[in-house]
C-alpha cells in the first residue's frame, strides 16, 4: 500500500512516498499557485492514502482527496521516525519556527511557535542574503568565514534590513553582518527552546537547518549537540507520509 505525504510550506513543497520504506523525496518551489504545483507533482501517481501538512494544507487536502495534519504533529512523527529516541524538535521553516517537546514515547507534550511575523525564519535569511548579495545556499558558509561579528538588534525582517543597510553604510564587513544575523536568530530560537524546556536528543529540522552556521550557533547557545537529518527540510513530509500509512484511521476521522 502506497502512502503519500505532502508538506505544502510557504516557500517549498515537499513530498514523501512510503511503501515500506520512505522513497521519492521531492522538493519544489511553492510559488503563487501551490494547488497547481501539487497537482503537477501528484499527476500520474497512484496512492491509497494522502496526508497534507504545512501552511497550504487546507487548500490542497480537499482538492486532492487527502487528510490534514498540523506541521507540529508532522514534524514530531517525522523526527521520531528518523531518530526514535529524540525528545525535542526544532524546526525553522520559511515563515515560522517552532520548538516541539516530545514525551518518552514520542507524543507531543508541549510546543511553541512564533506568531504572525517572519522574524527569525527562513524568509528572514532570504531577505538578508539578498541585501548582502549572497545566495541563500552560501549564506551560512559566508557567515562562518567572518573574523568578527556585529550585534544585530532587530529581528523584524523589515527593521533588520534597515539595520543591515546602515551597517553596510558604516563600512562593516558583509560577512561580519551575516554572522551577526545568524547569531540573532540562534539567540531567539534558543530562548524559545528554553521556554518549552528542552530535553536532550534534539533534532534540528526545516530548510534553515541546511545552513551550517545556524546549526553551529544554535547548538552553541543551547550547549547541546544537535542532530541534523541529511535532508532536514523533508522531516514534515516524512511525518505526513508516516501518518498516512499508520495513523490515518484513528486520528483524523
Amino acid at each position: 500500500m502506497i502512502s503519500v505525504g505532502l508538506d505544502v510550506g510557504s516557500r517549498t513543497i515537499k513530498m514523501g512516498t512510503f511503501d515500506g520504506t520512505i522513497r521519492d523525496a521531492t522538493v519544489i518551489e511553492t510559488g503563487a499557485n501551490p494547488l497547481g504545483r501539487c497537482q503537477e507533482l501528484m499527476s500520474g501517481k497512484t496512492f491509497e492514502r494522502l496526508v497534507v501538512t504545512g501552511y497550504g494544507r487546507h487548500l490542497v487536502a480537499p482538492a486532492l482527496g487527502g487528510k490534514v495534519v498540523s506541521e507540529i504533529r508532522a514534524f514530531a512523527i517525522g523526527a521520531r521516525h528518523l531518530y526514535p529516541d529524540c525528545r525535542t524538535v526544532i524546526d525553522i521553516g520559511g515563515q515560522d519556527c517552532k520548538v516541539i517537546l516530545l514525551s518518552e514515547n514520542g507524543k507531543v507534550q508541549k510546543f511553541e511557535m512564533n506568531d504572525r511575523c517572519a522574524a527569525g525564519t527562513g524568509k528572514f535569511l532570504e531577505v538578508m542574503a539578498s541585501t548582502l548579495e549572497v545566495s541563500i545556499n552560501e549564506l551560512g558558509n559566508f557567515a562562518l568565514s567572518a573574523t568578527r561579528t556585529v550585534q544585530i538588534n532587530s529581528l523584524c525582517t523589515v527593521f533588520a534590513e534597515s539595520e543591515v543597510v546602515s551597517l553596510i553604510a558604516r563600512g562593516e564587513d558583509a560577512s561580519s553582518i551575516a554572522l551577526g544575523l545568524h547569531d540573532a536568530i540562534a539567540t531567539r530560537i534558543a530562548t524559545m527552546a528554553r521556554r518549552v524546556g528542552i530535553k536532550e536528543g534534539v533534532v534540528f529540522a526545516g530548510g534553515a537547518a541546511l545552513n551550517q552556521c545556524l546549526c553551529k550557533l544554535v547548538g552553541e547557545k543551547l550547549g547541546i549537540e544537535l542532530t541534523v537529518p541529511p535532508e532536514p527540510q523533508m522531516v514534515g513530509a516524512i511525518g505526513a507520509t508516516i501518518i498516512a500509512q499508520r495513523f490515518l484511521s484513528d486520528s483524523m476521522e
Partner: protein
Amino acid sequence: MVNDNVQMWTELNIDLKSHDTLLNALGPIFQEVYLSQKNRPAGMGFYDFVVGDIHGIRVKELREHAKNGGKVVATYCVFVPEELVWAADAIPVGLCAGTQFSVPIAEEVLPRNTCALIKSSFGFKLGRVCPYVQASHLIVGETTCDGKKKMFEMLGQLQPVYVMEVPNKKTERSRELWHGEVLAFKDVIEKLTGNKITAKKLGEAIDLVNQRRLALQRLYNLRKVRPVPISGKDALLATQVSFYDDAQRDTQMLNALCDELDKRVAAGQGVAPKNAPRILISGSPMAIPNWKLHHIIESTGAVVVCEESCTGTRFFSDLVKPTEHNLVAQMKAIADRYMNIHCACFTPNDERPDDVVRLAKEYQADGVIHYNLQFCHTYANEAVKMEKRLEKEGIPLLRIETDYSDEDVGQLRTRIEAFLEMIKH
C-alpha cells in the same frame, strides 16, 4: 424602519457612510461564523435578531428612554456596579468594542501598541460609528489597565467621562478605597439623573441584576454537560448581548434558551460529538463582534465549553449578597461583590489560577487556551503563572496572543490544530 434608523443615526451625529460600511461588513461575517452552524437551539433566534438589528431597536429604546428624561450610562468594564445605574432609573450599556474596523481610526490618535479592545472602542467614538456611545449621557471608565486609564482621558475630551478607581491590591485598605469609590459613584449617578437612590430602588436593582446573573449561571451550568447542548460561539454571543440588552428581557430570553437546552440535555442531544475536545478559554474579554478564537476552535472540530473572562464567568459568577433593606448594608454588599472579581489588574491575583483549575474540572475541559489580547501586559504575565500551575495539575494549555485582525489566522489555526491533536493523541 430603515429610514427611521437613518433618521435616528443622523440625530446621533453618526458618520453614516462609514457606519454603512461597518454594518455591511458585519452581515457576511455573522453568516459565516454563526448562521452556518448546524443544530443551533431555536432560542438563539432572539440573539440573531439582535445582531441583525444591532444598531436599531435597542438604540431606539435608549433614545425613547432619553426623550422621557432618562439617562444612559456607558461602561467598559465589569467593575462598574450597574445596580446603582438601574436604581436611579438610568440604563447601563457595556460598550467594549471587538472589531478591527475602528482600529485604524483610533490609531490616528492612540499609540499603535495599545490593545485592540481599547483602540476599537476609542475608534468607535472618534469615528462616530457607534450609536450606543453617541446616545450615552455619561461614560464611566475605571483604572483596571494603564491603556484604558489614559484612553479615558482622551475620550473625556469628546464626551463626559467619569473614572472609578479600582485598586491594584486586595488588602483591607484597598477594599476601603473601593467601598469609597462605590459610594462616590452613587452620588455621581444621583446627580446625573436627578433621582435619589433609595433602599427600595436599590434592592430592586440588585435583584434585577442578580436574576440575570442566575440566568447566565444556568446557561453555563448546562455547558458542563457532555455532549454540550450549545456551541461556545452561541453561548458567547448570549453573554455579549447581556452587556447592552435590557436586563429583564435578557433574563427571560436566557431562561427560555436554557429551558430548551434542558430538553436537549434530557434527550442526550449535543451540538458536537460526545468525543469532541472540550476547551476552556481563559483570559482577555471578547467584545462583540470578536468571535475570532471561538470560530477557529469550533471549525477545527473542538467545542468551547466555558470562558473564564469578563465576557464569561467573571461577569456573573458572584451575586450581590442579600442584605437588610438599608443603603449602608446594600452599598457594602455591592462593593464586596465587585471586589471579588479576579481580574489580572490585581497583584497578587492567585485566585485566578485556582478558578481556572476548578472550572476546567467542572466543565470537563480537555485543555485550556489562554487568550490574551496583544499588549495586555497583565494577562500576558499571568499566563506564565497559569502555565506552571496547569502543568502541575496535568491540564494541557495553549497560550495565544492575538488582536482583532485576520492576518494571523493561518498561524493560529496551525497552533490550535496541533493543540487539539496533542490532546487527542
